[in-house]
């Protein structure tokens, strides 16, 4: 069977032949009975295919897929609202996270507050413990020993002015506090002016002994004191007893100034003796505290005493400065105000008594200080 005839038959079944092709097919079919059989079978099959039942779905497929479409497709307008619900659900954990972060911040702040309160409480307890054990006082003494060093040294010199001290030491220690002249003045108050005249020669050799050391310390102080000695030597000739006392006070003040200056220089130079003096002074202040650490009354008393000593020293220095500024007025003052001088002498006696009490409390430690002072003078004198 020719393929062209079969194509004509197939195309005729589909109605795709032209009129000429139909005539050509009819001619061929008339000539070949087998071809007519094939044509009739194919036409029958095509008719059967065309008669296939036009089936329809048992239910609406669109209604079945609409819920799925609306649930899956976000582009449709009807699906926008249902899809916002999961977004809301997603927002809840974010809010929870935000709350958790806020809670974390709050907890961090609370933790900081607790830590701060704990640190403050610990510091308060430590401070109370520190004060109760007297370490605060110890620190104060330490600090005061570093700053006002000359005052402490002068106290050491006062302490060193005991009966066990040597001659050279007496010359130096008599300057700051004048314990011995006050004793002589006590005698003057009791016996008269002659005894004071007798004390003035005692002070003269002391001052004459101190004068050789003064050039070593410095010329200005060394020059100032001989003039005063000369004036003082003339004044007893005038017969005024109180002049000798004021003179000795001036001399002692000058010596104390010199000593302070020397000690300052020694402290600046970092002398070994000064360090020892510091230690000894610290021991003086610490010793009562260490013996009775919990005794706050003794601490207060010691502080009061130290304050008194400071005040007394300041008063003395002021007086000496006044005397130095007004060298010619001392006779007038002695002549005019004998009562004021007597009051001053009484104050000095009280102060000396307080000093003596303090010396009685701390006598033995002073020996070390005296040796250190000698070293100091040697070192300072050698350098100068």
């Amino acid at each position, binding site marked *: 069977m020719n393929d062209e005839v*079969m194509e004509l038959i197939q195309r005729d079944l589909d109605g795709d032949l032209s009129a000429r092709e139909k005539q050509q097919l009819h001619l061929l079919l008339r000539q070949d009975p087998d071809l007519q059989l*094939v044509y009739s079978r194919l036409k029958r*099959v095509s008719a*059967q295919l065309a008669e296939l*039942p036009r089936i329809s779905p*048992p239910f*609406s*497929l669109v209604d079945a897929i609409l819920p799925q*479409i609306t649930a899956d497709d976000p582009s449709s307008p009807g699906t926008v609202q249902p899809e916002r619900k999961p977004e809301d659900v997603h927002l809840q954990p974010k809010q929870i996270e935000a709350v958790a972060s806020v809670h974390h911040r709050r907890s961090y702040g609370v933790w900081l507050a607790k830590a701060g309160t704990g640190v403050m409480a610990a510091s308060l307890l430590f401070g109370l413990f520190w004060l109760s054990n007297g370490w605060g006082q110890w620190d104060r003494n330490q600090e005061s020993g570093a700053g006002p060093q000359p005052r402490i040294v002068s106290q050491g010199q006062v302490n060193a002015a005991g009966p066990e001290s040597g001659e050279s030491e007496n010359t130096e220690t008599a300057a700051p506090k004048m314990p011995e002249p006050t004793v002589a003045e006590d005698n003057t108050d009791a016996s008269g002016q002659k005894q004071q005249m007798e004390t003035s020669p005692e002070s003269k050799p002391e001052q004459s002994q101190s004068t050789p050391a003064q050039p070593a310390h410095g010329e200005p102080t060394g020059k100032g004191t001989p003039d005063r000695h000369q004036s003082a030597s003339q004044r007893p000739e005038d017969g005024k007893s109180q002049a000798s006392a004021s003179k000795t006070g001036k001399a002692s003040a000058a010596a104390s100034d010199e000593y302070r200056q020397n000690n300052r220089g020694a402290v600046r130079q970092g002398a070994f003796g000064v360090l020892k003096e510091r230690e000894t002074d610290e021991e003086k202040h610490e010793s009562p505290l260490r013996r009775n650490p919990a005794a706050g009354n003794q601490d207060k008393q010691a502080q009061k005493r130290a304050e008194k000593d400071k005040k007394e020293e300041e008063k003395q220095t002021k007086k000496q400065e006044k005397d130095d500024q007004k060298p010619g007025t001392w006779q007038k003052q002695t002549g005019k105000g004998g009562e004021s001088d007597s009051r001053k002498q009484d104050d000095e006696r009280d102060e000396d008594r307080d000093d003596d009490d303090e010396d009685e409390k701390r006598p033995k430690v002073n020996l070390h200080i005296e040796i250190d002072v000698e070293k100091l003078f040697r070192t300072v004198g050698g350098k100068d």
Partner: protein
Amino acid sequence: MGEAELVRRAQAGDHDALVELLRSIETSVYRSAFYILGNEQDALDASQEALIRIYQKIHLFQEKAKFSTWVQRIVSNICMDRFRSRKDAVSLEEHQLVLADKNNVEDEILLTSLSNDVHSAIQKLPEQYRTVIVLRYLQDFSYQEIAEALELPLNTVKSYLFRARQQLQELLHDYEKGGVG
């Protein structure tokens, strides 16, 4: 409202127009799926999948082609994929599915009619031939429309159709002779 207008409105975002358009094509979609796949259940699944895909891809449709050919292309592709996946399965399952299909009412009607042999014969055709027969006799597509739907050359479509009909004639002739099947 015509098909072209519904398509235009559906592409513009009119949900109702799109739904109406889907309702107008759902029967043809199911019919093609049924004759290609050979059973109601697969036809329902394939047709629903095809409708969803049309709903999702409606914006990709271009008016150069006929909307019915574009829909049958989607259906034929889905059915080809299902046919290939089912063909890879065990042959015993195919026989069980065929036996199960006999229980359906529609299948019983077909069995009682003469078209039962034709339907059985169609299921014995190759998938390409089967699709061409379905589009030609069930969708009344021309050679050109079949070619557009299946994206095949026109001569290929004719060839497939001629061969499919010849095979069906032979099969049906055998049925008439002694009932081979």
